[in-house]
């Protein structure tokens, strides 16, 4: 793979990851948000695969397949199970309205680029320059987590933060050691399973997945 096609592929993948993070703030329908999450998982796997092919690293390619399976297929399926009982569920009134959220996302992107300067200075390669995309995706995920009212949106926020950090890990260090990567993926999967179980319980017990219902414990 020539270095310029490699650089463009990586740039495209990283940009798609960030775009998907922003689209979860844009779209209202929960079903659409889950599809966007699946696309983000595929883009992440694509980035890992490109880096693996370029570095001739077989473990990274295996990890890419793992990421594709876990984040592109399994996790969205699990989340769809949560909303299966309410397919028309929409995030109609987030704490910050959609245009303001999108403008805030733009500001967070700039913040991410400013904050990651020391990291990109350490690794000024084609991959290293894309690290701020991952940091930005993580920050947008935080924002989604903090300003959305549905339980499913919080799960999606956690996964966005995880995907952003995974992108940074792939770009900065060509992945972490295999044992850590396996453990991390397993942990993320288990966390989603736990969240799905809790969300189902919430729906059975409280009747809705609206987080405003969870407000009994306070000082």
């Amino acid at each position, binding site marked *: 793979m020539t270095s310029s096609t490699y650089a463009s592929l990586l740039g495209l993948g990283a940009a798609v990851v960030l775009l998907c993070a922003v689209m979860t703030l844009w779209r209202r329908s929960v079903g659409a948000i889950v599809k966007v999450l699946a696309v983000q998982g595929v883009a992440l796997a694509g980035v890992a695969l490109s880096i693996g092919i370029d570095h001739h690293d077989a473990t990274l390619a295996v990890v890419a397949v793992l990421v594709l399976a876990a984040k592109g297929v399994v996790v969205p399926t699990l989340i769809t199970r949560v909303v299966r009982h309410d397919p028309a569920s929409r995030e109609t009134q987030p704490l910050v309205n959609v245009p303001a959220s999108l403008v805030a996302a733009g500001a967070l992107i700039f913040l991410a680029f400013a*904050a990651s300067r*020391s*990291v990109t*200075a*350490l*690794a000024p390669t084609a991959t290293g320059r894309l690290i701020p995309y991952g940091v930005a995706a*993580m920050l947008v995920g*935080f924002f989604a*987590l903090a300003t959305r009212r549905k*339980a499913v949106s*919080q799960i999606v926020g*956690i996964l966005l*933060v*995880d995907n952003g*950090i995974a992108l*940074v*890990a792939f770009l*900065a*260090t060509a992945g*972490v*050691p295999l*044992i*850590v990567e396996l*453990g*991390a993926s*397993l*942990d993320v999967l*288990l*966390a989603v399973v*736990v*969240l799905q179980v*809790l969300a189902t*319980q*919430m729906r059975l*017990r*409280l009747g809705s997945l609206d987080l405003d219902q*969870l*407000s*009994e*414990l306070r*000082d």
Partner: protein
Amino acid sequence: MLITLLAVPLSCALLSGLAPWRRATGWLGVASSLGVLIGGVVLATGVVGRHAASGFHGVLRADALSAFMVIVIGVIALLATLQGIRYLDAEIAQGRSTRRHAALYATLVQGFLATMLLAVLAANLGVMWVAVEATTIVTTFLVGHRNTRTSLEASWKYIVICSVGIALAFLGTVLVYLAALHVPGHGAHALDWTSLVAQMHHLNPGVMRLAFALIVLGYGTKVGLAPMHSWLPDAHSQAPAPVSALMSGVLLTVAFYAILRFKVIADGALGAAFPRTLLVVVSLLSLVIAASLLLSQRDYKRMLAYHSVEHMGLIALGAAAGSTLAIAAVLLHILGHGIAKGVLFLTSGEILLVEGTSEIEHVPALLSRRPVLGGIFAFGLVALLGFPPFSLFVSELNMLRAEFQVGLGWAAVLSLVCMAVIFGAVMTHGRHMLLGPRGTAAPVMTPALVAVPLIGGLVGCAFIGVSAWPLQTLLHAAAHVVAR
């Protein structure tokens, strides 16, 4: 050796899950905790003054610090599993739980112990991260064990906030890995703690600064340091009492152990100033927030949870001081706080069981109505507030001394002010709960199974406070691992 230490709770977890709960399962859990404690003592004698033990192809490693943490885990697990028998029996008797559910509880508690052991015995910072994340996942179900609306809310908040924190800690770990990869001549062992410490002076300072900040923010969420503490009062008050004891007594400090490991590397790469400032800010924030919120608490379990936030703040301040004396005091405080907080949570669980409410104003006159229970609670509060002869007095005094020595006197004074406010608040609440007229009912005796371990725990805490022997050398060796 190390792998057998891990295998003990893991196999108990498997065995507990096989059949519906019986008393025997509970005693099996107690045996497992005892095994962990004995293993920790054996490990400590093995590593003090000699090389660190390593096991399982270098994935596991135990130096003095790890051995000390294993002992802490073992002691509090012993108390919690002993009380767990009583708790599960009562829950099943009162119809709030089934035998299958109780078996799940027993399995999860053993799994919890196993993941905490893995976290303190990991040689690789990445494996340590995986273990800490695993504790979050295991404890979420434990927090929601009681299956009420409030416990569901508590477990949701717990897993959302702690997952986010752990994700930040992962980013910090990745950044440390990046910095290590760029040191010439490194490579396959870049996340191994010993090799990181060997190379720590060559790590890029800009990246390390960002990484350490993320580590403090991320693992600090699990420690319960402000401003990431909001899950703590909910989770610790809604969880079953033995789980609260384990979480408040041990899990918080296991997460702090992770911060200590990273602090060693950060001190080497950045000098002591930046890590110290960061930890001082976070600790003072925790102390101030805990002090301001304790007075208005109406629930005694929430009060104890906020008290944990205060103690974590004190521990962070001690770690910020960073000298050998400070770290030794911090470690002693970890043990003492673990025992005292564990005893208090277990006692409060018993109070909840027999009184049926967790509101302070609805459980008055405990000393007259339930003398043994009230007495244990009173002594537990006394221990936590830092009175002699309990060990918290010694550890707090030494931490203050170390802070003055290092130049953090102003922070020490601020912490003293907060501690005074908290003292007043806890005394007020304690007075409501303990003193008062008995009324017409006769005083109720507490069963021996409950009282004996709790009294034993408090006696042990006092014993360590009076004479630091058996732990003296271990504490010094462990402190030397961190403070160089």
